[in-house]
């Protein structure tokens, strides 16, 4: 947005009281307030309002799926069209970035030490809030801070430098320990810290469990996306790529494959478009890139001698019965098998927790870590948030987990 566009758009904001956009934002940014500030040309003030509530302000400003959060609730949408809240948010944080971060206040100091394990959105959100509350925070991650947004969200959606402005800003609020944590490490951390927050995300790709998955050319989606993002000169991709899965990550993978030069990218999903849990923007992007999306198809086996040559598929139909997610169950149609040619197959059907050092911490369905309302796990003093507790979510949801878990940790420490 140009300054003039931001001004015109901010002028459209009705300045609702008890604004629904604010409740719809998981981090509860005071949206009418920052928009008023853009309107009065107090853009740095606007950025400060955003950053006060949301630790990953730039990243969320860039890729937050506004259609399911703030903008979906905008009152102005009932009159004509909703305010472009995310664009205004991004405009403000970008302006602040250019000008130089505003100086932050001195925070109180407690004598408490908290360990945050995992430097993704949830971990960073938690560390930031804990620092504001005066606690000393050590953040552990084997990789540079940023988590999923840094490692696997494609650059065309979120460039490294866009996230870096957030991590650079946040780095002053905690001590970063570039080390991975195992069960003994966790024991040590527990002894040296007054509380811990687990936020290592998922990290392990779910596989289909069908014949041929070990063949060369079959790529788990996270590995593929991480490699694509890390490579400076691009990675090699086959001519014919099939992506299995109907989520945002599969769309990211399909669009990435296309951008890497794949001749034809086919995405197959076992249900129909209506059941896809994806952001509109992602679907549009994948289609714009020329990804072919076919619905009601199940993979049966992967064929090939040493490497992938194709995928045997079977048609499905949706029955009336619904699964746990409330979506109709797809059943295979007998005699509908067909084979698609492929030299690369990307499996993108979801992730599970990779960490194998969580012994003694209660899990729930799907293997996710079970937490109470205050984000505390079954182990007292051990809190958790982000995708580990809820499954694949959005950056803003994870930041909110971290933020609200930090409040709970503070209460826990104060009661100690």
């Amino acid at each position: 947005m140009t300054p003039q566009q931001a001004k015109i758009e901010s002028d459209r904001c009705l300045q609702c009281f008890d604004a629904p956009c604010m409740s719809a934002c998981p981090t509860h940014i005071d949206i009418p307030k920052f928009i008023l500030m853009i309107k009065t040309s107090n853009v740095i003030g606007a950025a400060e309002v955003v950053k006060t509530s949301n630790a990953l302000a730039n990243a969320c400003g860039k890729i937050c799926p506004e259609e399911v959060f703030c903008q979906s609730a905008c009152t102005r949408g009932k009159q004509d069209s909703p305010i472009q809240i995310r664009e205004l948010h991004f405009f403000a944080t970008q302006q602040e970035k250019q000008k130089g971060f505003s100086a932050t206040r001195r925070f109180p100091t407690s004598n408490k030490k908290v360990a945050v394990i995992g430097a993704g959105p949830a971990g960073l959100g938690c560390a930031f809030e804990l620092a504001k509350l005066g606690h000393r925070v050590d953040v552990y991650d084997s990789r540079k801070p940023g988590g999923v947004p840094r490692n696997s969200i494609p650059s065309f959606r979120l460039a490294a430098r866009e996230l870096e402005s957030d991590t650079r800003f946040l780095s002053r609020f905690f001590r970063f320990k570039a080390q991975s944590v195992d069960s003994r490490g966790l024991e040590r951390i527990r002894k040296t810290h007054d509380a811990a927050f687990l936020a290592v995300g998922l990290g392990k790709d779910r596989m289909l469990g069908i014949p041929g998955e070990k063949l060369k050319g079959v790529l788990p989606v996270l590995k593929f996306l991480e490699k694509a993002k890390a490579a400076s000169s691009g990675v090699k991709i086959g001519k014919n790529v099939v992506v299995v899965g109907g989520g945002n990550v599969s769309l990211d993978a399909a669009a990435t494959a296309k951008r890497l030069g794949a001749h034809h990218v086919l995405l197959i999903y076992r249900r129909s478009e209506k059941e896809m849990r994806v952001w509109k923007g992602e679907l549009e992007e994948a289609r714009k890139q020329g990804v072919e999306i076919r619905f009601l198809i199940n993979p049966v086996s992967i064929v090939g001698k040493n490497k992938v040559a194709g995928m045997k598929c079977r048609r499905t139909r949706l029955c009336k019965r619904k699964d746990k997610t409330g979506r109709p169950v797809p059943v295979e149609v007998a005699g509908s098998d067909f084979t698609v040619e492929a030299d690369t197959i990307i499996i993108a059907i979801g992730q599970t927790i990779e960490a194998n050092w969580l012994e003694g911490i209660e899990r729930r369905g799907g293997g996710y870590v079970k937490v109470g309302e205050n984000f505390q796990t079954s182990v007292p003093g051990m809190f958790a948030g982000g995708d580990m507790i809820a499954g694949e979510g959005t950056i803003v949801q994870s930041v909110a987990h971290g933020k609200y878990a930090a409040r709970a940790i503070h209460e826990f420490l104060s009661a100690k």
Partner: protein
Amino acid sequence: MEYQVLKELELYPVRDLSYDFLGIHFESPFILAAAPSTDNLDMVRRAFAMGWAGAILKTTSVEGTRVDLCYPMMSTFDHEGRKLFGMGNIDLISEHHINKVEFNIRTLKKEFPEKMVAASIMAGRKEDWQSLVQRLESAGADLIECSFSCPQGNIGEDPGKMLAQSLSATELTARWVKEAAKRIPVSIKITPHVTDIVEVAKAVKRSGCDALTASNSIQALMGIDIRSFAPLPSLGGKSTYSGMTGPAIKPITLRTIAEIARNVDIPILGTGGASTWSDAVEFMSVGAGVVEFCTVVMHYGFRVIDDLKSGMSHYLDDMDLSSPAAIVGKALPNIVTHDDLPRQKIRSHINEKLCIGCELCYVACRDGGHMAIDQQPNKVPRVDRERCVGCGLCQHVCPVDRCIDMNVVA
């Protein structure tokens, strides 16, 4: 997961915006004008808790004065889709008995000793003016503001005239008020509806009063229903002139403050059309010591104080100014008479890269300027530098920021 909305932890330091003016300590230049927002104790409490530096309680009068209000009293001047560009009211003074106003002042000063609490008064006879001052001063008011300019008032020399429209009545009444005030400063709230605002300011200065509040609402006829011919706001088809406030009157107030400040050495409380922190900067730069707000609060609520303070803080940082007080009068040396303006040769220049081809500059110049802009096949108009006199109309009708420059020609 749903979370309870928790109060955010402050991330940024709060800049000190406080300074002294009229011997009173102000936390910031932002105070509430005498209006409905300051007529109720709970409302002022809320405003103070949210960060307003002070309030002038809605105008009170002597006991037994019947306040004969009519409803509806509000109306609006909408402009090109914008609501409340100007706001009209046919409100009168507070309906509260003076005892209640005294109680409010006492309570507010006790609960918020650091805030500026002022009383606004209006009366007719000398003894009434003076007893109001005495009672409110003893109740603990930090300042007395005297409304000499209520647009609906009938306390001037002639019916329907405002007190501040008469120099002699202004000076005489101001003297009475000043006599009665023992310790606290007195400000006279004037109207811009006079032939010479400087003469009024001089009369106030002669009276010995401490300050001027410039200025009150603009008398206006808010509109006519073109089917029923009822003036607005329509009270069963009838209406009267309103006092107009809000963004629409800002330039009038700016001129009023500037004109007083350039000619009379007297502190000024600026009011009338300021809605934002930058409006406040403008008011202060032409001589206002503090700025009173009303319409923006009646539109959006007390919460606008957050932006006022934040915007002012960033402005002071950017400008490397130590305090809001440092803004006062900054623009005054730059206001000159027409004779003293620089005579330059100016030509308009359209930036082709920014032009969006609406041709508004073309039609404005053709029909309202000097027919100096020519249409082009590519819709990017061209300025004829021979015919262009540099009036600047095109620049102001252009919808694109910085697309048209006015350049000095050597």
